[in-house]
């Protein structure tokens, strides 16, 4: 049957028509070309408009940005917020994943929904909810309110990574360890943690990137503080020194790509870490 494959079935297996191919490539270019413009405009000599093609190229904006104290303040605040949110999310996400993996209990579905809700609902709902709760409770807006908001939607990222790894590893590993004489804590240290570490780290990295990028919720939970995205948002409406925003954007891209690439490599080949015997 296969040997006498008609041209029809050959076509459905191997080659795409040019129409489909170009539509696919159009999608890819549409998704990726715009980023190049950000980089290009970081070098333009035109600092008041977005004229294309740029009238000239310069590297001066990197020096200008480097000298801006407010840029460094915003960057530093963003790093602090992202780091704190990441740590909270790693602890809570791991706890939740362990509970959901190990136990069956009444209301489990509801807990899953609760964990997912902060990213399922539009960011503005999360933002306005937190803001109205904070102002109702007379909580002053600060670094802590930003972290509170960020950690809430970062939990799910760590949770997803952790539970995916747990589900892929053999449940007998924990039993094997206890069978060989290790108590709960020794089992955690010698078996669970080493197997989960890369998934947790990947989840943490993604949480960091997510927090570092966030603007919608942050607008509502920040007081006078400016995280980097908020600072950039403000810069956008300034008439002069526009390429500074681009330079900052290039920084942001680099800072978020490092953890995302790291997360990718950490979770890439986990098939042989899964520990199945067959």
């Amino acid at each position, binding site marked *: 049957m296969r040997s006498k494959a008609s041209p029809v079935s050959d076509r459905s297996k191997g080659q795409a028509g040019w129409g489909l191919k170009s539509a696919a490539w159009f999608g890819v270019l549409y998704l990726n070309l715009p980023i190049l413009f950000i980089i290009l405009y970081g070098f333009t000599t035109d600092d008041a408009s977005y*004229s294309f093609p740029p009238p000239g190229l310069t590297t001066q904006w990197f020096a200008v940005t480097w000298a801006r104290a407010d840029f460094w303040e915003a960057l530093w605040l963003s790093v602090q917020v992202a780091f704190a949110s990441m740590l909270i999310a790693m602890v809570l996400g791991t706890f939740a994943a362990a509970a959901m993996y190990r136990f069956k209990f009444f209301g489990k579905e509801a807990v899953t929904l609760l964990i997912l809700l902060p990213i399922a609902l539009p960011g503005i709902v999360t933002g*306005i909810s937190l803001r109205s709760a904070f102002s109702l409770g007379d909580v002053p807006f600060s670094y802590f309110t930003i972290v509170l908001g960020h950690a809430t939607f970062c939990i799910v990222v760590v949770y997803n990574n952790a539970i995916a790894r747990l589900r892929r590893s053999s449940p007998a590993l924990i039993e094997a360890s206890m069978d060989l004489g290790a108590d709960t804590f020794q089992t955690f240290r010698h078996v669970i943690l080493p197997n989960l570490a890369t998934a947790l780290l990947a989840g943490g990295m993604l949480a960091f990137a997510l927090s570092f990028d966030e603007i919608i919720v942050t607008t509502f939970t920040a007081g006078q503080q400016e995280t980097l995205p908020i600072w950039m948002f403000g810069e956008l409406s300034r008439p002069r020194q526009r390429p500074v925003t681009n330079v900052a954007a290039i920084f942001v891209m680099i800072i978020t790509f490092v953890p995302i690439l790291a997360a990718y490599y950490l979770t890439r080949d986990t098939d042989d870490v899964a520990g199945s015997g067959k």
Partner: protein
Amino acid sequence: MTTTGAARPRSLSNSFSTFLYQRPRLVLALLLVPPLLWLGIIYLGSLFTLLAQSFFSIDDFTAQTIYEPTLATYARLFTATNLSIIFRTLAMASVVTVISGIIAFPLAYYIARFASGRMKALFYVAVMLPLWSNYLVRVYAWKLILAKEGAIHWSINSLGLGPVLDWILTLPVVEGSSLSTSYIGTTLTFVYIWLPFMVLPIQAALERVPRSLLEASSDLGARPNETFRKVIFPLAIPGIAAGSIFTFSLTLGDYIIPQLIGSSRPFIGQAVYQFQGTAGDIPMAAAFAMVPIVIMAIYLAIAKRLGAFDAL
């Protein structure tokens, strides 16, 4: 003859571990309580505050919130202006969802069916990369591209098609002085930002279609077009529905994109933002925020029927 207990000497951690072993419910509680407290108090608590706020009202003279249950705020929500904001947002979310679907499907189909090896990895990264790059940066990129002096206007003028673009920009709904101040610009940017959310679930749904099914179809005499219409597309519907949840929900709640790119007419997100910010009318902002929640609840109910949750 039988005695209870173990033979080995015990350390403190060993004893505590045994204590926990005999009480699995306690372990469950210890694990589950911290995340539940956090999400329950901070997140659910806030959502309920928001809901409660929407049943309060604001005093017109003092601009203070009156903490008495009332439906007055909801009554004010359904004015002609606000309804047009809601309608505008819904229309935009629908258009963005449809266009995303049209662009995403061939891309997802190509990745799932035809690309293999390195090519597949390349395409996959090409879809994932924008998803994880900075949101604001990506919106900003379109501001650069769509500006009157920017790349698209320049290209079109270079091709001598400037008058055509100018004519399009005078059309009734589109209207704007440049692409970056027209609905075309807003739509392009929305589609660009949410496209990966549409591609990935469709691709996942298509990957799950076993090859033998397609061979069976052509074996039974179906031409490629028929196989596509009768077999592939129906099986991709859960993926499309799942993707549309994201594109629809995210468009409903966004306020950055319409603020940076497009006409000055507001969307739901901007309205919420302004009511709580400049106007200081938190009850109204809360009531407005309920709109996307209700719309999404209805949308999710429909998507669930289409099998979207199996494709997530």
